């Protein structure tokens, strides 16, 4: 399919628009539509969802008619590591506490970089960053995050 299309970016984008637009209409099917002059909660979502799907169709059609640059390199490793590190941070925050979760976030996301290796300067910076967050956010602003979570304190 992508080989046929002259503009893969438009094609993918269009596909996304169609998918989201139709999803909006589908998941919104239970909200009452009301009338034009007395709109219900389903009116806007349905209209917008349909509109988005239409844009999507236009984009897909256009992708077969006009040339466009290819998508280019995708940073798969970076994507996986940065997003994964963030999700893991969220999961670790309560059980492990802020400090281990931050440690994970920093190391996991940093490892996505080609230049990741152990440097004393970087380690010092890491420690300083951890200290800064603990001081400013937990002690200073009182955000309710345990520094060390239930895994450590039992």
């Amino acid at each position, binding site marked *: 399919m992508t080989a046929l299309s002259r503009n893969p970016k438009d094609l993918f984008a269009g596909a996304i628009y169609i998918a989201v637009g139709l999803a909006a209409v589908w998941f919104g099917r239970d909200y009452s539509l009301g009338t034009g002059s007395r709109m219900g909660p389903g009116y806007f*979502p349905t209209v917008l969802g349909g509109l988005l799907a239409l844009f999507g169709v236009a984009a897909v059609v256009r992708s077969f008619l006009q040339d466009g640059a290819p998508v280019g390199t995708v940073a798969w490793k970076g994507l996986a590591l*940065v997003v994964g590190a963030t999700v893991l941070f*969220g999961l670790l925050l309560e059980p492990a506490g802020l400090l281990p979760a931050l440690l994970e976030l*920093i190391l996991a996301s940093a490892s996505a970089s080609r230049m990741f290796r152990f440097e004393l300067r970087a380690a010092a910076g890491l420690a300083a960053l951890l200290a800064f967050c603990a001081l400013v956010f937990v002690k200073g602003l009182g955000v309710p995050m345990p520094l060390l979570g239930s895994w450590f304190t039992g």
Partner: protein
Amino acid sequence: MDMLANLALGFQTALSAWNLVYCLVGVFLGTAIGVLPGLGPVATIAMLLPITVGLPPASSLIMLAGIYYGAQYGGSTTAILVNLPGESSSVVTALDGYQMARQGKAGRALATAAIGSFFAGTVATVLLALFSPPLADLALKFGPAEYFSLMVLGLVASIVLAQGSLLHALAMIVLGLLLGLIGTDVNSGTARYTFDLPQLADGIGFVIVAMGVFGLAEIIGNLEHEATRTAMVKSVTGLWPTREDFRRIVAPVLRGTALGSLLGILPGGGAMLASFAAYSMEKKVSRNPREFGKGAIEGVAAPEAANNAGAQTSFIPMLTLGIPSNPVMALMIGAMIIQGIQPGPSVMTDQPALFWGIVASMWVGNLFLLVLNLPLIGLWVRMIAVPYHLLYPAILVFCAIGVFSLNNATFDVFLMAGFGVLGYVFRKLDCEPAPMLLGFILGPMMEENLRRALLISKGDPTVLATRPISAVMLVIAAALLVTVLAPAVRRKREAAFQE
């Protein structure tokens, strides 16, 4: 003249030793919060409210006000340096500001933002002093129909914002509108697209979307071409704007100030709308619109002036009528209430020292901010010179903690990660996030006001055209739309001719 007496009283209050201290503390804190992604003035002021009980009313309001407009300064700093808009009003600043930073012009961008903001703040303070009551009455003329038309105008303006394909800009706006609808519908109480998740019942927070789509996506994007990236970010060419820069920003700052001052008084996102509108206006009137999005200094000067002017004038309805223009003002009202002051039309006459003291302190605060921020530019610029592979994990940390601290919900962190993926996908597909964000913010307000307007008019849609202010805005929107579509249509016809 009465005005001079009032101003004298105001400065007397504002320049008292303690109030100067509180003002300084406020703006400093505000800047710090603006710089830290996630934590915003709303959360901070809410946290500090109990402390202000012990302070005299003028001092507490001076400090809280300082936090608010200080945060506008701080928010633009991170928007420029690392493409992370901390406030909704800094989103447009990130568009060109960050590009300028990548071209080694970070210092010039930051200075422009500070100077533009200071000028706008000064003008806005004068407006506050001279025209508060009439401006407040102007704000009152805005009913649901007018708001709806204003939002439509805002959305059309955001099309102008977009650089690439018109089709994608429109689609992104609609996508943003849909995302903004997630949550509970105010008119009927129906939960829309919440999939029974209570965390989605109030909708998705702006910060979460912004951090994901701007912050995370940017980091991932930069990981694509690491070797070449460090080469692309040129070394800093100088911290102070050149003479040419100054020449270029004069008109945008003036226009931004005017637009911001007007839109700020309107309840419902006036300051943020102002920055978007100012950017779009600059792009429209510029002789080289193609430069926008690639580091046009006007694209930093105008929105920054607009958002600061808007932040100041948003105090007008609050101080003169007790009507909050945004959540921060609502908290200020809360602060006044705690102090035993009834916010309302009589504050100006019953508590002149308070009123004029706040007005005067705003100018003082702006001065403090200018003095604070300019020397810091050197520090900021050195910070972003840190090798990127060491810097971005720190950025990620602040995003994650910032987002978590909004509602103490890890769900928000996951959501941000999801938006990071989405943002990266769009980045690869050349779909711009800025129109989506604008749609996201304006969508729910637009719908709410349209439904309300129709409810009041008994289902008669012509009310949008018969009410003068509403009609004017719709006409401008239509005209703007034509100017945007016409060249696109012409280009298509030319392309078709060439085939």
